[in-house]
C-alpha cells in the first residue's frame, strides 16, 4: 500500500512574508520537499487549497486583529503539529513596539481614517493564543534550520536547534570577539544562536534577531555596554527591536526607559 504523503500547510498572520519566503529560498531543496509532502495550503506559492486536517502547520506572523485571534484557533484544531516560524510568530515581531505605546495614537499617525482600521492594542506571539509544538526563532529564520524542523517533524523526532548563545557560534567559526577586541557593543552573549554569528563575521555587533537565549543575563551585558559609553536611551532601543516583547528583552528595555 502506498504511504499517504504528509500534508503541509503554511499560514500567515501579521508579518513581512520573509519567513515563509525562506521555504521558497531553499532553491536546491524545494522540489525535494515538494516531493516528500503534499503542500495543502501555501497561498504565497499556490492557488490550490486542500482541506485539513494537516500533519504539520507552519505559522508565520503575530496576532494583531480580532479576526486573527479567532482564526488561529481553527488552524490549531486542524493541525497535528503546529510550528511557529520567525520573530513575529514567536515574540510579536517589530509591530509589537505598539505594545509600549497607545495604539490609537499610532493609527492616527499612519492612517487618515483611523475608524476604518481594526486592530488590537497589542501584537502578541501565537503561543499566547494556542498550544505551540515548536518555536523556530529568527528575524528572519535560518532556512537550513527550517529544513531541519520540517525533516524532524515529518520523521517523528525532535528538531536539533541549539538554544545556546551567538557567542558559541563565533567560537565555532573562529571569529574574534568584536566586543572584547574592538569595543563594539554586541548582543551576542544574550541572543540565541541560529544565524551563524553573521554580524560579528561582518565586524558588526549582534542586534538580537533570534531573540533571548535560555537564561540570558541581560542586566550584566547592559553594564558592559554602559562602560563602552552606550547611553540608557540607546540601551532601551537596542533591546526594543524585532524581539521587543520577548520577556527578558522587554524587561531589560523597560529598565532603561526614563
Amino acid at each position, binding site marked *: 500500500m502506498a504511504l499517504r504523503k504528509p500534508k503541509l500547510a503554511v499560514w*500567515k*498572520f*501579521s*508579518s*513581512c*512574508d*520573509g*519567513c*515563509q*519566503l*525562506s521555504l*521558497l*529560498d531553499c532553491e*536546491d531543496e*524545494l*522540489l525535494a520537499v*515538494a516531493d516528500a509532502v503534499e*503542500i495543502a495550503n501555501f*497561498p*504565497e*506559492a*499556490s*492557488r*490550490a487549497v486542500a482541506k485539513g486536517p494537516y500533519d504539520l502547520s507552519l505559522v508565520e506572523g503575530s496576532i*494583531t*486583529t480580532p479576526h*486573527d485571534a479567532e482564526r488561529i484557533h481553527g488552524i490549531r484544531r486542524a493541525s497535528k503539529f503546529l510550528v511557529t516560524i520567525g520573530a513575529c510568530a514567536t515574540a510579536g*515581531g*517589530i*509591530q509589537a*513596539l*505598539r505594545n509600549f*505605546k497607545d*495604539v490609537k*495614537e*499610532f*493609527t492616527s*499617525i*499612519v*492612517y*487618515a*481614517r483611523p475608524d*476604518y*482600521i481594526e*486592530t488590537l492594542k497589542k501584537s502578541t506571539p501565537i503561543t499566547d493564543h494556542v498550544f505551540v509544538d515548536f518555536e523556530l526563532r529568527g*528575524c*528572519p529564520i535560518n532556512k537550513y534550520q527550517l529544513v531541519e524542523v520540517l525533516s524532524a517533524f515529518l520523521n517523528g523526532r525532535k528538531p536539533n536547534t541549539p538554544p545556546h548563545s551567538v557567542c558559541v557560534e563565533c567560537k565555532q567559526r573562529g571569529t574574534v570577539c568584536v566586543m572584547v577586541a574592538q569595543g563594539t557593543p554586541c548582543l551576542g552573549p544574550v541572543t540565541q544562536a541560529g*544565524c551563524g554569528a*553573521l*554580524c560579528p*563575521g*561582518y*565586524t*558588526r555587533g549582534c*542586534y538580537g*534577531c533570534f531573540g533571548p537565549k535560555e537564561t540570558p543575563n541581560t542586566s550584566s551585558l547592559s553594564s558592559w555596554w554602559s562602560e563602552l559609553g552606550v547611553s540608557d536611551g*540607546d540601551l532601551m*532601543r537596542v533591546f526594543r*527591536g*524585532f524581539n521587543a516583547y520577548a520577556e527578558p528583552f522587554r524587561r531589560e528595555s523597560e529598565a532603561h526607559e526614563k
Partner: protein
Amino acid sequence: MKSRTIKVDYLARVEGEGALTVKIKGQQVTDVKLKIFEPPRFFEAFLRGRKFNEAPDITARICGICPIAYQMSACHAVEDACGVKITGPIRDLRRLIYCGEWIESHALHVYLLHAPDFLGYEDAIRMAKDHPDEVKRGLRLKKAGNEIVRLLGGREIHPINVKVGGFYKVPEKREFFALAEELKWARDAALETVRWVATFSFPELDRDYEFVALRHPDEYPFNEGRLVSNKGLDIAVREYDQNFVEEHVSHSNALQSRLKERNSYFVGPQARYNLNFDKLSPVAQEAARSAGLGPVCRNPFQSIIVRSVELVYACDEALRIIENYEMPDAPAVKVEPRVSTGYGCTEAPRGICYHRYRLDDRGVIVDAKIVPPTSQNLKTIEEDLGQFVQSHLVIQKDRLQWQCEQAVRNYDPCISCATHFLKLHLESE
C-alpha cells in the same frame, strides 16, 4: 436584471493578504475593489523616536521579499538629510546588491508566481512535473540573485551588512570570482527566459497609463534620478509630496496613491522600461527586440517579458560592476546627524519606494513617511480589472476569475509592503 459577482477571497501567489471583488449588473461592471486585509503594522509611527542609523534595519522588515529596496531608500533619505552623497565603489556596490534583489525577486515572480497562470497550472510545483527544466532554471536564477545579496549583505532576507554611509564590511575583489562565473550562466539563462515567456499568449489590454519611474542621465535607474512620467512629470525626489497624495479608502488597510494633477499611475518594471529603454545595456535591448517588444510596452499582461528583460539587464549590470570593482579604502563614510529632512526614492523590483525622514540634532527620527510601490499601483490595478472584465463578460466565470487573478499578478503586488495585498471576489448582484 441579471447580476453576478466575481470573488476571490484570498488571492494566491502574491506576497501578503488581499481579496478582490468585481460586481457586475447586467452587462455593466459596477464596482471593483481590491481589498487589503493584511493587518496594519504602523512602521511610520514606531519609527518616531528611533535613531537615524536604525532606519535601514527596521524598514527592511516591512518586506521580506524586497528588504534591499527599503534599506536603500532609507539610507539615501537619511544621507540626504545629513548632507552626504555616496560615490565611487560604495555606490557601485549598492547598485550591485540591488541587482541581486531584482534577480531574486523577478525570477521568483516570473517562474514561481506568474508563469503558472500562462501555462494553466495552480502553482510552479505542479508546473515542474511537465516543465522540470524551466522550473529548475528559474530556481537556479533566483539563487544566483540571492548569492549576490548573501555575499554583500550576509543573508538573503533582511541583510545585515547595509548601513547609513555604506557597508560594515566590503568584499575583496577575489571574493567575486566564483559569483561572476555563475552570473555569466545567469545572463544566458535570463536570455533563455525572455525567449521562453515571449512564446506565451497574452490577453489584450490597452489603457492610456501614466508610467512613473526614476530617470538618471547616465544609467538605468536603481538608487538615483529624477521622477519622470510619459505625461510630463519631471521632478526631484524631494518634490514627491507636492505631486503625489495618499488616500485612505474603507476597503483597504493600505493607503492608495495618486498624482494630484491627474490620477492613477503605474510603477514597476514596465514603467522603468518604457521611460528608460535607451539606458538598457545593448544585450538587454537586443533581447527585448527579439521578443517582439518595441521601446514601449503597454499591455500589462506582457509585464512578464519586461521583467525577464530586466533579469537580463540586472545580470549584465552585475557583471559589469564586478569587473570594474576596486575595493574602497573604507567600507563606509561617516555620517553625522543634523536637524533636517531627507528624501530618498529608489527602484524596488516592483517600482518606486519613497522614504522621508525628519531628524532632530541628536539624529532621532521625529517624523517618517514611507510609500511602497504596491500602494501606488492599487488604483491602476482596480481600473485594469474594471476594463478587463467589462470586455470579457462572455468568458466562463471560472476562467474569468482566474484571468482576473492573473491581471492582478501582472503587477507582482506585494501586500506585505502595501500593508499586504490580495483576494479576489467577482460579484454579480
